[in-house]
């Protein structure tokens, strides 16, 4: 009985710590994006959030072409921009979901890759501004100490989706 209670207490403490980590990261991400002063600062905020809060140092932001049929690389960090400069939306089924406003996460090694490229993709995040999806943020490989995204990371992706619009357009 004592061992059971001790184990339950440990679990409760772990849950509380995870909740605080998530709360602190979401607060920091939201405050940073909302206080960004211009487009360049907003892009830097996206880089900081991905690298420091999520452990992802390979990030790219894509913008639609005029017909919204393709995504063109707009800004990147930590990747070879020539390798992933363009995605044809019709050939990427997961991107179609993202264009409709859904955040898509890599669910693990047994799941199909998110994009038809060799580089691992961890998440596809629609960037929403004035109620419309204006672009897509691609989070590529995570740092080696990260095995995958957790609940806190998923909340941060929600924040990026809703507050990083300024990164795509000069104010």
């Amino acid at each position, binding site marked *: 009985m004592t061992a059971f209670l001790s184990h339950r207490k440990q679990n409760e*403490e*772990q849950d509380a*710590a*995870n909740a*605080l*980590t998530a*709360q*602190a*990261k979401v*607060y*920091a*991400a939201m*405050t*940073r994006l909302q206080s960004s002063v211009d487009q360049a600062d907003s892009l830097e*905020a996206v880089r*900081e*959030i991905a*690298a*420091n*809060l*999520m*452990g992802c*140092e390979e990030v790219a932001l894509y913008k639609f072409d005029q017909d919204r049929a393709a995504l063109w690389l707009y800004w990147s960090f930590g990747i070879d921009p020539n390798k992933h400069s363009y995605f044809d939306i019709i050939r990427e089924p997961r991107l179609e979901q993202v264009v409709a406003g859904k955040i898509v996460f890599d669910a693990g090694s047994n799941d199909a890759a998110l994009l038809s490229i060799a580089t691992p993709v961890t998440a596809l995040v629609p960037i929403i501004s004035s109620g419309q999806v204006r672009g897509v943020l691609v989070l590529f490989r995570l*740092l*080696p*100490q*990260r095995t995958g995204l957790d609940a806190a990371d998923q909340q941060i992706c929600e924040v990026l989706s809703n507050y990083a619009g300024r990164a795509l357009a000069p104010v």
Partner: protein
Amino acid sequence: MAKKVLLVDDSTTTLMMEEMILKQRTAYQTVTAKDGLDAIARAVEETPDLVLMDVVMPRMNGFEACKRMRLESSLRNTPIILVTTRGEEEYVEAGFQSGCNDYITKPINSRELVTLLHNYLGE
């Protein structure tokens, strides 16, 4: 009197997160600096009980700032924890050679951070 922790990072996002975790989970007082040079000045002025410092920063990185802090008599024995994105052996070794006491890898987890700080400062 509350123990004082100097948080050093060029990323305001990281500083905000660290401040929030320490505010909610500890009674420590926090002061901040944006790079290695700023950190040395703040550390001499504030004489913190512990320094939690990023490695990759503009103007002066965490390794160099750590080395220089160790040359200051008031900071010679202050625990310095480096925050790294890489946990590889060589990188960690460079940190210890610069005079740090410990290291923690990004992204920071609140439980890990608080436990580490409690080890050096008590609760």
